[in-house]
């Protein structure tokens, strides 16, 4: 605290212009500005995709509605405008501004298929399932990967090290959807070890949702396959990263000094090696959390699991552009927020970063 107080005083001695400069240079503020800018650019690109590019869905939809004379051009425009929460009559820059304003308020328009259902409510209905399944898989892979990576680094060159490292890099280079198809093919159909058709959906049809043992068990049963695939495709990355981070840390001076001081192996492994090696991985984990929302499209499709990805594909199949646009925005914002969190977390975990920036 004393250090910060001294910095504040030093800041007060500078002129107002320099103070503003120092303020903008502040790492937390810079990270926040960057995140806001990225979201703005992503929103703009989405707008361009839907509204501006040739063959964009707004023009297509108006053409469709007016083609067989069912609607006049004005009626069609009105309906499309309501669907996208865009005013088509005002000039483009103004359309853009009102669109951005609507997005900021969380109004993403309405589904093509039912004009009373808002895109936000559609996303909120499927989001928890994706967060649960993919998040569990990611966390499991992180914990197991960290453990195995640390072990492999300590037993460098051993059979265990070679098995874990090679296995990790092989599994992580197989596309995750192929692992999913293979599981259906081998475990579900050939061996009949897993009842894949019963495991479809987020939970079984007749069961009452609530915090009962039955319901939680049922949810886990339905999410088991997506979780397993996610675990398998991510664990290799964590093993390899943790292994190389540990190897680098093992040669650090402070570890050598700790050994020289005669500390126990257990204490060196946990407090001196593990903690430092896991540091960069924690911020990687925070970034990965952002990709949870959008990271499971094909897996959800193959296992018929009602998450965000499956919903996106349903929207694609029925050309429901407002829903597609909403999911694209949501997934991007999730990554930006996670990146911001990772930046902040890292400056907290490793004070050197904050000071040098």
């Amino acid at each position, binding site marked *: 605290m004393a250090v910060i107080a001294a910095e504040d005083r030093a800041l007060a001695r500078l002129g107002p212009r320099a103070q503003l400069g120092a303020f903008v240079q502040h790492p937390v503020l810079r990270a926040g500005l960057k995140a806001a800018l990225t979201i703005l650019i992503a929103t703009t690109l989405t707008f361009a*995709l839907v509204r501006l590019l040739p063959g964009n*869905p707004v023009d297509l939809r108006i053409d469709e509605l007016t083609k067989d004379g069912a609607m006049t051009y004005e009626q069609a425009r009105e309906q499309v405008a309501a669907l996208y929460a865009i005013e088509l009559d005002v000039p483009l820059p103004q359309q853009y501004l009102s669109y951005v304003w609507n997005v900021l308020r969380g109004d993403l328009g309405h589904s093509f298929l039912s004009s009373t259902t808002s895109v936000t409510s559609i996303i909120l209905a499927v989001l928890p399932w994706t967060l649960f399944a993919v998040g569990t898989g990611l966390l499991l892979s992180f914990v197991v990967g960290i453990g195995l990576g640390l072990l492999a680094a300590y037993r460098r060159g051993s059979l265990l090290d070679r098995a874990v490292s090679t296995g990790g890099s092989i599994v992580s280079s197989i*596309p995750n959807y192929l692992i999913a198809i293979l599981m259906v093919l081998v475990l579900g*159909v050939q061996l009949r070890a897993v009842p894949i058709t019963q495991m479809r959906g987020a939970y079984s049809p007749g069961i009452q949702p609530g915090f009962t043992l039955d319901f939680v068990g049922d949810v886990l049963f339905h999410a088991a396959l997506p979780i397993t695939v996610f675990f398998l495709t991510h664990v290799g990355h964590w093993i390899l990263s943790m292994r190389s981070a540990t190897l680098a840390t093992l040669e650090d001076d402070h570890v050598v000094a700790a050994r020289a001081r005669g500390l126990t192996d257990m204490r060196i492994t946990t407090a001196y090696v593990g903690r430092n090696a896991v540091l960069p991985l924690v911020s990687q984990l925070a970034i990965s959390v952002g990709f949870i929302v959008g990271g499971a*499209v094909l897996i959800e499709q193959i296992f018929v699991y009602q998450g965000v990805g499956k919903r996106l594909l349903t929207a694609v199949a029925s050309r429901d*552009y407002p829903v597609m646009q909403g999911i694209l925005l949501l997934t991007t914002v999730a*990554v930006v927020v996670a990146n911001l969190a990772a930046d902040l977390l890292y400056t907290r975990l490793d004070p050197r970063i904050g000071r040098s920036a």
Partner: protein
Amino acid sequence: MSGIATTLRAIARTPAGLLGLVGVGGFIALAYLVPLIVPLQNAVDVANLYRPPSFAHPFGTDFQGRDVLNQIVYGGRDILNIAFLAAFFSTAIAVAFGSLAATVGGRADAAILAVADVVLTVPHLIVLIVVAAIFRPDGVLFIALLLASLQWAGLLRQIRAQTLSLKEREYVEAARALDLGLFHVIFREMLPNMASYVAIHFIFAMTAAVYAQVGLIVLGLVPLSGANWGVMLYLAQSQGAIYFSDSFWYVLSPILAIVLFQLSLVALASGLEDVFNPRLRTA
């Protein structure tokens, strides 16, 4: 030319590199050379639907009684073409703009980095799905360009960082002092020193392109015609063949082809890493 031969020989000396060379070479031969010798078998044979492997059909037959191995042979070219082109475009963008950003600096540098940051942030598969749903890309070149437009950002940042450090070296300073021009400094002085780096990333860009394009094809979003490993999986998925025990070999074959191709690429990249970065071997 002799430089490449020396490098290949060095790669073949590491076990992973040898596997990678043989694998990638094998797939290139399978996709581009074997179709010249083996005729396409497209005749429907209703009497032999979903046959298990036999002497006549080493990988069985498909839902129309056609030979699966024949489809694997003919189904690789599009996948390899797209992977190669996408990797080529994304590497070209990354190298050109990454080295430019680092050498020019200032506003141009900041602008290029900002664009790269946005591209790194958006979830690629979701963007690809939405863009493919709107524009229905067909044709190898269009798909490759679409994939490349999202893939260049990671490599660009690394090329930029490498260039920044190379910029300070004496031989680069000498070239600048001689006023040899930006083009000469970037392409004749700095790039050759990043060649190994670029080569490794080129291979990883190929694996990413295979992942993304097969994903899009399996979802039915890129209407590629004819036999193709991804199209085989798309048909298997959309016709429910993956839930059908007789069609096991038909579904397994394209999966094996894709997985083996990916593993060969990764092995080749790891062989390259061993050759160019011998310190990694001991670390």
